[in-house]
């Protein structure tokens, strides 16, 4: 399972990839950021085309297996409202040696950002909500859009 609406358990992901033959394990966590450029982000609301996420992630995982056949990779993406500081995505890759583990982990996060249909809306301390584009910058505020039933 790739998507979850609960906090991500890193221990569970580590257990999924652990194997005595795999001597290097790399963990990537993406967390909801409230930095100087974010203007008071309290949380991000993540939504997805869930059926396609599962299908596309299956293809992505097959691509990763083709490149690193000895690696084991586990991924979770959390959906729903995620408070600042909590993880929205976790990727754990284990391989015989560290170079493949780092490379596989990097490959997966970059492909997720390119292929997996997930979207995020920043919820800000002033009550505004802003869709975020792939460069991490706000697009338009939903309040600029027409009201609908």
């Amino acid at each position: 399972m790739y998507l979850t609406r609960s906090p991500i358990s890193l221990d569970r992901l580590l257990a999924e990839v652990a194997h005595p033959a795999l001597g290097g394990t790399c963990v990537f966590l993406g967390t909801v950021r409230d930095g100087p450029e974010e203007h008071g982000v309290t949380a991000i609301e993540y939504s997805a085309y869930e059926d396609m996420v599962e299908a596309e992630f299956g293809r992505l995982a097959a691509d990763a297996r083709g490149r690193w056949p000895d690696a084991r990779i586990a991924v979770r993406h959390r959906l729903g409202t995620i408070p600042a500081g909590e993880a929205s995505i976790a990727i754990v890759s284990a391989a015989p040696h560290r170079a493949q583990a780092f490379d596989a982990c990097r490959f997966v996060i970059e492909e997720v950002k390119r292929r997996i249909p997930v979207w995020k809306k920043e919820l800000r301390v002033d009550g505004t909500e802003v869709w975020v584009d792939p460069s991490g910058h706000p697009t338009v505020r939903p309040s600029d859009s027409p009201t609908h039933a």
Partner: protein
Amino acid sequence: MVRVRFFARYAELVGRAEAEVSLPLPATVGDVVRRVREDLPGGGKLPERPLTAVNLKHVKLDATVQDGDEVALLPPIAGG
């Protein structure tokens, strides 16, 4: 008949998450997008060349659409 799905900001722009679109088939994804932009309230606010998927796979606008397909208009992907 083609089922069209909208997500995130695009769903807000058209005020709905999906629509049934009828057009002469086979057509291209680009034909479906044009029909949606012309016929749906708020459709004109959608981009002319959005990211698209057919039956859960990324496709380009010249991809063929058959009866019963599910076409999705995807805002710029922003996961992770």
